[in-house]
């Protein structure tokens, strides 16, 4: 190794990655908690493929592919929300969306005569390749997440516990579900594109899973998820620089180990 790890911070991509990670690992674990509460863990895979469809459409129509990917995710997330009231829930439709979206994306690319590999490359982003506008988009979506978490705090606490209890308490569950699904889909869509598919789990679902083992309340879960997200991801990022390995796998391994440890706590 030629440089000490902290010397990498002189590089612009490393600075951007660090800022993006500070923001997202402080905020996206909240999205992970919502995903667990709505029981829609497959949303990550579904949105990854919807983002690909958006990218394909962007390439074909000559629009900004990053934006199209995120916009498509938001639309599909909102469109799925009414299914939350079905007894079978959202997990099944998520699987359907995943398959349908990738088939549609390949079809769109094929009809337009565009090379599919180009679209896949655009899908698999890396946190070290973030542009300045990507960091801003990340910050904007994070602000939306915080806004929803604050404005709908009481409604969400009841909704994630039980839809009927929430409804009988006067929570407009259709509206709240739609807003939350839209924000989750936007967040996942943006994160997949910008940080890479693997890293999305390290900043969303893994901290939430760990928090569920540690906390006795939803408020506690959010606090633990954010804490574990920050410690795991920022610690993992420094580890990445120290051992000079790609950030995606290192961060996921770091946060996964923390998450595994929390399972020991359970009796």
């Amino acid at each position, binding site marked *: 190794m030629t440089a000490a790890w902290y010397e990498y911070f002189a590089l612009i991509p490393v600075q951007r990655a660090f800022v993006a990670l500070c923001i997202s690992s402080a905020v996206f674990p909240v999205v992970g908690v919502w995903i667990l509460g709505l029981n829609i863990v497959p949303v990550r895979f579904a949105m990854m493929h919807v983002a690909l469809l958006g990218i394909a459409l962007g390439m074909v129509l000559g629009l900004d592919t990053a934006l199209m990917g995120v916009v498509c995710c938001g639309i599909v997330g909102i469109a799925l929300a009414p299914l939350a009231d079905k007894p079978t829930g959202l997990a099944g439709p998520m699987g359907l969306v995943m398959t349908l979206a990738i088939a549609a994306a390949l079809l769109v690319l094929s009809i337009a005569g565009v090379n599919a590999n180009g679209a896949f490359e655009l899908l698999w982003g890396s946190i070290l390749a973030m542009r300045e506008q990507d960091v801003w988009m990340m910050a904007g979506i994070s602000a939306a997440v915080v806004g929803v978490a604050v404005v709908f705090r*009481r409604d969400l606490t009841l909704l994630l*516990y039980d839809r*009927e209890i929430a409804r*009988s*308490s*006067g929570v407009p569950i259709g509206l709240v579900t739609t807003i939350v699904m839209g924000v989750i889909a936007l967040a996942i869509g943006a994160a997949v594109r910008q940080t890479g598919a693997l890293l999305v789990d390290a900043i969303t679902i893994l901290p939430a899973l760990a928090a569920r083992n540690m906390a006795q*309340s939803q408020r506690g879960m959010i606090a633990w998820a954010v804490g574990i997200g920050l410690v795991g991801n920022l610690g993992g990022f420094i580890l990445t620089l120290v051992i000079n390995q790609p950030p995606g796998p290192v961060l996921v391994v770091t946060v996964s180990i923390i998450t595994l440890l929390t399972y020991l706590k359970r009796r």
Partner: protein
Amino acid sequence: MMNHRESDTDIPAVLATDALCCRYGTTVAVRDATLVVRAGEHIALIGGNGSGKTTFLRAVMGFHREYSGHITIGGRTVASRGNHPWVYRAIAWMPQRQATGAFPLLVHELLDSSLDPAAARQSAIDLAMEPFLTRNLSTLSGGQLQRVFLSRALGSLTGGAQLLVADEPTAALDFAGQQAMARLLTESAQTMLVVTHDRALIERCDRVYEMAGGQMREVPR
């Protein structure tokens, strides 16, 4: 106590169902149920397991949507979502299977969802639930859980709800608890529709309906 007389029809209906049929796919759980609950009445709904009592109440609450016929609360149809904000302020609800959701909810958070959170909290304290206010609902016993849901419902009645709808509210209680709960329910709720097997509670009601195989009929007394 109120007797069932002709002149009762002058008293406004708080809850009315007309030819209500509820299905789960091809299973018919409630058949042609017509019931009117007038202001001031306490109605008990009895019947064997699986006879359709919970389904009937969940349809009244707007939770079970696979139905035909009409349901109105205070003259407003439950089927119309536009009425929901009003409907959910008009009803205090005690569910049977108090969701043991996958996610935690604290006792005081549930009490805060009552129409009058302060009154709900006071009820919980009166029912000896003060030590449990910061506990997770999933760590309570069945009887404790029922007292929390009762407190929430009592708070909503204080906060202006006109009708108490309760599904086996005394099922998890000990004998003394059942007696006390029966008294509390009938004294607190001006108008009530309650599913129950509990003698003490049935005896305090003005009318009794029985469900069997999804059909509802009034039990002569």
